């Protein structure tokens, strides 16, 4: 069951990734190209998912929006887990006051509600795509730091670590050649789940009107759809981007869950 859901998730993700990469070929219009005479049009053979008030093609915006969501999601997920892994490795292996200081830093960051602190930082620094990626990573790395630290704490007392120390290996070598490879599989899971979370945060930001205003985005399409007329009579403007967000995060979550089951030797199924 899990296995099958993870496979379905992977297929959906590959489709979305290809669509994002080949946006110029798949989208039928530019995302900011206004179709004259086709304003507020329901889906038809030219505009597969209709057009909005300005005559923008919904299908094309959906495809280009995938590019933004996936770019933000994947880079943020990798960056956040990368930072977290580094902090966790150093913190767990070094121990002492370094560990104490780093873990208090983690506690402090966790003490802020993610969306609220991200909003505040975006308001201060501006909403460019780079800023959004950096801010979300700097706020969300804490989970993987704790995860890695906990694993390193137990790994460092294993015999193979003692053995390599006895053979004269440096701390650096022990940490990155012997301990790090053992946490890779759980990092893989952390990355997929972190990507899902980042896609959601980006969608929330652009829904609230605080995303990058120059980029087409799923969240922003829903932001524009808050009027009662649109909600009641123009489903094609808000259901497709909403479903796209759900499908994207759901797939990453399924893949992450499947990976966890597949990689965890202690899970019996």
């Amino acid at each position: 069951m899990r296995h099958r859901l993870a496979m379905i998730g992977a297929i959906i993700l590959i489709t979305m990734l290809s669509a994002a990469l080949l946006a110029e070929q798949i989208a039928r219009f530019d995302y900011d190209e206004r179709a004259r005479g086709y304003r507020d049009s329901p889906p038809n053979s030219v505009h597969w998912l209709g057009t909005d008030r300005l005559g923008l093609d919904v299908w094309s915006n959906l495809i280009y929006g995938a590019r933004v969501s996936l770019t933000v999601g994947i880079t943020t997920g990798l960056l956040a887990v990368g930072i977290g892994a580094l902090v966790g490795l150093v913190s767990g292996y070094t121990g002492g006051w370094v560990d104490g200081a780093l873990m208090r830093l983690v506690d402090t960051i966790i003490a802020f509600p993610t969306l609220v602190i991200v909003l505040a930082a975006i308001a201060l620094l501006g909403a460019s795509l780079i800023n959004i990626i950096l801010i979300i990573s700097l706020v969300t790395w804490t989970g993987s730091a704790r995860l890695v630290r906990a694993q390193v704490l137990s790994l460092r007392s294993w015999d193979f670590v003692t053995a390599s120390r006895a053979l004269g290996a440096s701390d650096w070598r022990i940490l990155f050649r012997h301990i790090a490879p053992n946490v890779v599989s759980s990092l893989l899971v952390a990355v997929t789940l972190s990507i899902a979370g980042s896609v959601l945060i980006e969608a929330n930001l652009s829904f609230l009107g605080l995303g990058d205003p120059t980029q087409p985005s799923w969240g922003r399409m829903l932001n524009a759809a808050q009027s009662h007329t649109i909600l009641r009579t123009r489903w094609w403007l808000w259901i497709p981007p909403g479903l796209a967000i759900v499908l994207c995060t759901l797939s990453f979550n399924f893949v992450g869950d499947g990976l966890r089951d597949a990689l965890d030797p202690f899970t019996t199924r």
Partner: protein
Amino acid sequence: MAVSIPVLIGITIGTFLLISAAPGDPLLAYASLDDFSDAQITRARAELGLDDSLPEQYLRWLSSILQGNFGRSLVTQRSVAAEIAASFGITVRLTLLALLVSTAVGIGVGVISAVRQYSLLDYAFTFISFLGLSMPGFFLALLLVAVFALSLGWLPTSGMFTLTLPAEASAWERFWDSARYLVLPVIALSAPDAASLARYTRSSMLDVLGQTYRATARAKGLRESYILWRHLLPNAMLQIITVIALRLPGLFGGSVVVETIFNFPGMGLLSVRAATDKDYPTIMGITLIFALLLLAANFAADMLYAIFDPRVQYDQPG
């Protein structure tokens, strides 16, 4: 989270650093006016303490925060403390209601899933939980509004009470009226949280179901329902309480979106307005209050944990 003092200090330092990172010199606006000479601006900087070192500025800022002075909103010119005081109760009530609903639903669904592991019901709940985890709150909220408020017309679309309610309406009518306005926001806010709690409860319960004391209780001939309520749930509850405090950040974050969609004038809506208007004093004040609320909740969770688990004793040597 037992060591909360360093975290408390960390929170204020973090907030202060963000404020000092705010672009724009507060006096830059005057620099272009001819009426102000460079000398006057230099003197004003000194008087406002803008030339002091960062640690000095931090201590001054901290002491004013401790006196309840969060500065003035750049937009409304009202004091930030007053703005937050006006919106605080609305957010706390909304999140507490959502916390109650999601706790009840999440635990219920999780327990049923675990007891009936691998049944059709379990798979259905699992799928719905994943859907809830992956559904952005704003999309769910818009769906709820489109279906229950606009198409069916059962519930109001936004706001907190009916503005045209007659003045002679009884207290009960007023209560009922505002309750109707709360239904959709509370569902939208609690759904993702209920989903994650259900996942967590399910795995905690599965953990407990495999324990040997369960086999012992059954060997004694106790009824299954008695074992569930007296032996299994209390033990699973211990694990579940620890995540209550972990769920609040998500709820606070969700309240930002839900309050915006349903036009609830709470701290979430205030923070979005402040972020949009670049109203730095307000957004930092709200961020700080949210962080302090979370810290307090963590503290409460630690206390609850000690009450529910007699083995836990804090700060006892040995």
